[in-house]
């Protein structure tokens, strides 16, 4: 019943959102509240939010498949899956943000090698293929099992997604197969680390390379993007695993590792933000100072103090600290994760929007007055509802995938390649103290 309500709610939100997206596609950018001075708004905020979520989740998965953090093994597939769907979400947002969405493929035909955005689009595509490949490799044994052992919809899905792959019966063959998968997961993971950094560091660079925006034109911006991506990825997986992960003997370790990582990432992120603010305010470049002051005490103050500091720093750390005393109940950690994910939206808002509030030339704001030349912005109804729709759609797809594909459960056969390589590490042992 609860599940049905959940899906109905998601479907309704998706439906409403898609109606608004339809309006957007029919009427053009007219439906937004964007202006020529404030040229990027809510959709771009969600675009970088989702790309960050994707890169963060993926980097978390590499800790398992590349850096062999065995305590986190349980969440390997989960993080790959969320990397995949977050990226899809991010690309949907960037698509509806285009004035001519029907021309999106021009980016692959008409090239401009000095454009960061152009490079990024290529990175996104390579990255999505890499994530898909890795996800398939880690799931193929279970998919094959689904195809052979199950009937109905699940069997059908297994047959489709296993793409003809079947786990062989004899033990030697099985070991060979799992070694092959393990090796390739590792190779893809190693390729994926620079790729994920390029994906989100590059997304940060899209903003940072603009000499026109002193508030963004700083080398620390891409780094903040990457670190906050790690924060959001770790937070999302913490939330999902704490609430929906199976209760078993591994769970305390996984949760402890995740929360430790989360707190570490939040700490680094906070340090970088502090550096950005202190250097910026001390430096005193007027446009930069204007944006920073607007974030600290001005119109973005609430977003900063409640969202960026409250939801993404204070509350999660407090909850994780409090949760140390509760045993076997991970709701507090889960809430910490959720609060951080929501707080990262505030981080993204403050990364994009405050850079656009200062006229590039003194007096330009009063030179020619038009509602589409303002230096202030609040998203329109269409922007808000289409965003809600896309988010609901991504959650819906993710939930369906989670339900139908072998994401969390692992069958007891030696399907993990790295198991056969003995590095002298006890994979079941804790790498972190709970």
């Amino acid at each position: 019943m609860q599940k049905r309500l959940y899906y109905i709610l998601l479907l309704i939100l998706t439906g409403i959102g898609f109606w608004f997206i339809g309006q957007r596609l029919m009427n053009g950018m007219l439906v937004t509240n964007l202006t020529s001075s404030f040229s990027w708004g809510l959709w771009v905020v969600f675009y970088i939010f989702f790309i960050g979520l994707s890169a963060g989740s993926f980097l978390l998965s590499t800790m398992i498949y590349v850096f062999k953090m065995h305590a986190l093994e349980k969440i390997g597939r989960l993080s790959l899956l969320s990397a995949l769907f977050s990226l899809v979400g991010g690309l949907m947002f960037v698509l509806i943000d285009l004035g001519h969405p029907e021309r999106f493929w021009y980016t692959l035909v008409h090239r401009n090698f000095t454009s960061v955005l152009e490079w990024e689009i290529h990175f996104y595509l390579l990255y999505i293929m890499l994530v898909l490949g890795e996800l398939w490799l880690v799931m193929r044994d279970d998919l094959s099992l689904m195809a052979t052992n199950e009937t109905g919809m699940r069997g059908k899905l297994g047959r489709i997604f296993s793409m003809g792959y079947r786990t062989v019966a004899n033990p030697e063959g099985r070991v060979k197969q799992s070694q092959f998968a393990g090796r390739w997961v590792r190779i893809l993971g190693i390729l994926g680390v620079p790729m994920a950094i390029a994906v989100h560091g590059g997304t940060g660079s899209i903003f940072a390379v603009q000499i026109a925006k002193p508030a963004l034109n700083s080398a620390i911006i891409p780094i903040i993007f990457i670190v906050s991506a790690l924060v959001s990825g770790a937070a999302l997986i913490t939330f999902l695993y704490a609430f929906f992960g199976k209760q078993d003997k591994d769970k305390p370790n996984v949760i402890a590792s995740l929360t430790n990582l989360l707190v570490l990432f939040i700490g680094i992120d906070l340090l970088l933000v502090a550096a950005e603010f202190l250097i910026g305010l001390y430096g005193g470049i007027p446009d930069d100072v204007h944006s920073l002051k607007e974030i600290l005490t001005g119109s973005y103050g609430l977003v900063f103090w409640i969202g960026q500091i409250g939801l993404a720093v204070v509350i999660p750390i407090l909850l994780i600290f409090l949760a140390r005393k509760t045993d076997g109940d991970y709701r507090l950690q889960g809430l910490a994760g959720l609060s951080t994910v929501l707080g990262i939206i505030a981080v993204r808002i403050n990364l994009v929007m405050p850079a656009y509030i200062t006229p590039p030339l003194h007096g330009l704001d009063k030179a020619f007055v038009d509602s589409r030349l303002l230096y202030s912005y609040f998203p329109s109804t269409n922007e808000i509802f289409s965003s809600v729709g896309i988010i609901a759609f991504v959650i819906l797809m993710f939930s369906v995938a989670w339900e139908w594909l072998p994401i969390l459960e692992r069958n007891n056969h030696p399907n993990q390649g790295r198991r056969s390589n003995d590095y002298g590490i006890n994979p079941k042992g804790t790498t972190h103290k709970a």
Partner: protein
Amino acid sequence: MSKIIEDDAPQKVPRREAIRNMVKATLGLTAGIAVVSAGKALAKPGNEQQQTTTLEPLAKQIPQDQLIYRMHRELYKALEKPVAERKWAMVIDTRKCVGCFSCTVGCIAENKLPPGVVYRPVIEEEFGSYPHLARRFLPRPCMHCTNSPCTKVCPVAATYKREDGIVVIDYDKCIGCRYCISACPYGARTFDWGEYHTQGTPNIEKYELVPSFEYGDKRERQKKQSPINNTRKCHFCLHRLNAGMLPMCVTTCMGRATYFGDKSDPESLVFELIGSSNLMRLKEELGTEPNVFYLI
């Protein structure tokens, strides 16, 4: 500036004399009303009548006005060269700009700009405080930077720098991502949101639907079709240049404060003016090397 006046030798009239003549001419036409205002107000009405008849035709009395012919001549000369050898530049004399906005309006009329799109706004600035006050008007077209930050970032190479220095947009290629708008340090790019002045009235008026001839294409502004949902910007009236006409803002400038020409031609007016010591470019520190110069 004296060099420019000398250039127009046939109409050479000492400036002071010309002004005096003009003052007297005004007096003559207003016959007796402004007798006192001329300073040495001893002249009798009869005398003034006599002096009016000795006035030369107006065009010869404002040597500055010959500049438009000179720019025109130079434009023709430049058009004879191959495109790659022309280097278009604009010089704006802020001391002569009176803030009439005729460039802004002329540009809007020429390019049929919809609401929200503007290529050449004029920034008004005020300096000092009473009684020592000054105002400055700073028209801001696209700077057509030599190192243009906007063309660098375009993901589809829809905006690019032509060989003659003009930064243009290929409307049919532009995907409308607005990255260039964000990357321009001068705010010189605006987005066409698809709005009409007469939106919401029973019908959109004809004047908003007439085609514009930007980049030499005849383009009707229709829903969902370029240039709607594209970035738009000043292009030095490329379509006019190719037809042997000066940019609209140069033509309509009533104070003759905007000069345009080929800066690679050492005999051109803009080349001459770029050699002034009171020359300035906007945000020089960014290294964008604008091709719009200001005389201050």
